[in-house]
C-alpha cells in the first residue's frame, strides 16, 4: 500500500506541475492586468496540439516540438491580448468584460480545433524509458515534466527578481499609476506578461500531453483546475500558484487512490468553495509583486 501511495504521490506531483504552469500564467496576468483570462486553458491545449502535429505530421522528435509549442503559445497570447483584452481595458470599467471576451475566445479556439482536427484524443510519445527510485517507477516523461517544469519556474523567478523587465512587471503589478509616472510603457508590459504566461502554459501542454493524452478538451479541464489552484494559492501570488498547483495534483492522485476519483474531484471543488467563503485572499494572501 505504501508503495502504491508513493507511486501516486510521484504521479500526482508531475500532473500538479502542469497545473502549476497553467495557474502561474493565470495568476501573473491577474496580478499585472487585474483581469481573468478564461482562454488560458486553450493555450495549454494548443501546446499539446502543436506537439502532436510536430511529432506525427511533421515527424519531428519530441524535444524539437517544445520550442514550436512555446512559439505557438506566444503568438496566441499576443493575439488574445490584442483582440480581446487591450481594447476592452482601454475603456473605463472594461476589466469585467475581459472575462466574458476571453471566454468567447476560448470557445472559438476549442471549436476551431474540434472542426479542423476532430475531438478524438491522441497519444504522444514523449521522453522514453523508466526510472526506478526505490519502489517508485517514474516514466521518463514524468521525470522530464518535473525537471523541465522546475527549470521553467526557476527561470521565471529569476526573470521576475533579477532582470529590469521583471522588476518593471512587478512595478506595474504594484501600481500602474506609479509605473506610468516613471515612464514604464504599461501596454508593453501587459502584452509581454500575456506572452510569457502563454509560453509557459503552452509548454505546460507540451510537457503534460504525453502523460495525460492529448485531447481537444484538455484545456477546458485544466483551466478549471487552474482556477482552483489560483483561488487556494491567492489571486496574483506566483509562489502560491506553484505550491498549490503541486498540492492539487497530489491531492487528486492520493484521494483518487484511497477514495476514488469522484471523491477526489468533490473534495477539490469543495475546497474551492470553502476557500472563497472563508479565505478569499487565498492561503498566501499576497499579490504577484
Amino acid at each position, binding site marked *: 500500500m505504501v508503495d502504491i501511495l508513493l507511486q501516486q504521490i510521484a504521479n500526482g506531483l508531475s500532473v500538479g506541475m502542469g497545473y502549476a504552469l497553467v495557474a502561474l500564467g493565470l495568476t501573473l496576468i491577474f496580478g499585472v492586468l487585474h483581469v481573468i483570462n478564461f482562454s488560458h486553458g486553450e493555450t495549454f491545449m494548443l501546446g499539446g496540439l502543436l506537439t502532436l502535429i510536430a511529432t506525427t505530421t511533421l515527424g519531428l522528435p519530441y524535444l524539437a516540438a517544445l520550442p514550436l509549442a512555446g512559439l505557438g503559445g506566444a503568438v496566441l497570447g499576443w493575439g488574445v491580448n490584442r483582440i480581446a483584452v487591450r481594447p476592452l481595458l482601454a475603456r*473605463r470599467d472594461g476589466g469585467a468584460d475581459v472575462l466574458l471576451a476571453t471566454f468567447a475566445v476560448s470557445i472559438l479556439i476549442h471549436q476551431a480545433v474540434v472542426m479542423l482536427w476532430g475531438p478524438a484524443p491522441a497519444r504522444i510519445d514523449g521522453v522514453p524509458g523508466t526510472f526506478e527510485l526505490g519502489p517508485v517507477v517514474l516514466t521518463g516523461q514524468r521525470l522530464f515534466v518535473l525537471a523541465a517544469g522546475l527549470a521553467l519556474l526557476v527561470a521565471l523567478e529569476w526573470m521576475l527578481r533579477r532582470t*529590469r523587465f521583471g*522588476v*518593471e512587471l*512587478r*512595478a506595474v503589478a*504594484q*501600481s500602474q*499609476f*506609479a509605473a*506610468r*509616472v*516613471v*515612464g*514604464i*510603457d504599461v501596454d508593453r508590459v501587459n502584452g509581454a506578461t500575456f506572452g510569457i504566461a502563454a509560453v509557459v502554459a503552452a509548454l505546460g501542454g507540451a510537457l503534460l500531453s504525453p502523460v495525460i493524452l492529448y485531447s481537444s478538451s484538455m484545456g477546458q479541464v485544466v483551466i478549471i483546475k487552474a482556477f482552483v489552484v489560483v483561488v487556494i494559492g491567492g489571486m496574483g501570488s506566483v509562489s502560491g500558484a506553484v505550491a498549490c498547483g503541486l498540492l492539487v495534483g497530489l491531492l487528486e492522485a492520493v484521494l483518487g487512490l484511497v477514495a476514488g476519483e469522484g471523491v477526489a474531484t468533490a473534495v477539490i471543488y469543495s475546497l474551492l468553495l470553502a476557500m472563497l467563503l472563508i479565505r478569499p485572499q487565498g492561503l498566501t494572501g499576497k499579490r504577484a*509583486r
Partner: protein
Amino acid sequence: MTLLVDRLTVTYGASAGLADASFTVAPGEVIALVGANGAGKSSLLKGLMGLATHRAAALTLDGVELGALPTRARIARGFALSPEGRHVFPELTVRQNLDLGHVGGGPVPAERIAAMYRLFPRLQERSGQAAGTMSGGEQQMLAIARAMMANPRVLMLDEPTLGLAPIIVRQIAAFIAAIRATGVAVILAEQNAEMALAAADRGYVVENGRIVLEGRAADLARDPAIKKAFLGI
C-alpha cells in the same frame, strides 16, 4: 532652459481638470502652484508629464515641443514627477525603486545612485528594504530621489510635505533650495501655501481648474486675499 506652457487644458472624460493654464519656468527657478485640494494643481502636473489627456497651444522645453510625446520621452527630455501620495513601489526595495527612475536604458549608473544616497543618506541605510515598510517621510524622500534619478531639468513635486512632520518639511525645503542652485527648475504644487511661497520665486494661484492669480511669491504671501484663502490667517 525655459519651459513654456500656453493654454494647457487637462480633461478627465467629459470634465475638465484644468483649463487654459499658461505659464513659464526659467532655469533654477522655483514655481509654486497654490490652491485648495482639487483645484487643478495635480491635473496641471499630470498634463505636463503626459499622464492625463490634455491639449496645449504650446508645451515646449528650450523650444522643443513635447505635447505629443509619451511620458517616457518627456522624462528623457528633462521632466520628472514626484507624485502626490508618493506612490513608491511598496514591495520593491529602495534600490529597485531608484533603478526604475533611470530612463536612459543600459545599466543604472552607480554614480547616480551614490548622488541620491548623498542627497538622502537615509535611503542608503534602507537600500535593501521594501519601500512600503518605510515611514511616510522616508517614502517621500524616495519618491523625490526616484524622480531625481532621471536627471531632470524640470522637477515637479506634487504635495511633497502632505502629512509629514515639521522636521521632514524643513529637510524637503532645504533639498529644494539645494537643487535649484544646480540650475534645475522646480514646480512645487502645495496645499501648504506658506511653505510653498517661502520656497518659491514666483507663484500661481489655481482655483476651480484655472490660474486666477500669478506674481512674485513674496507678494502673493503678503496678499490679504491669499492669506485669507490659503494661509488661514
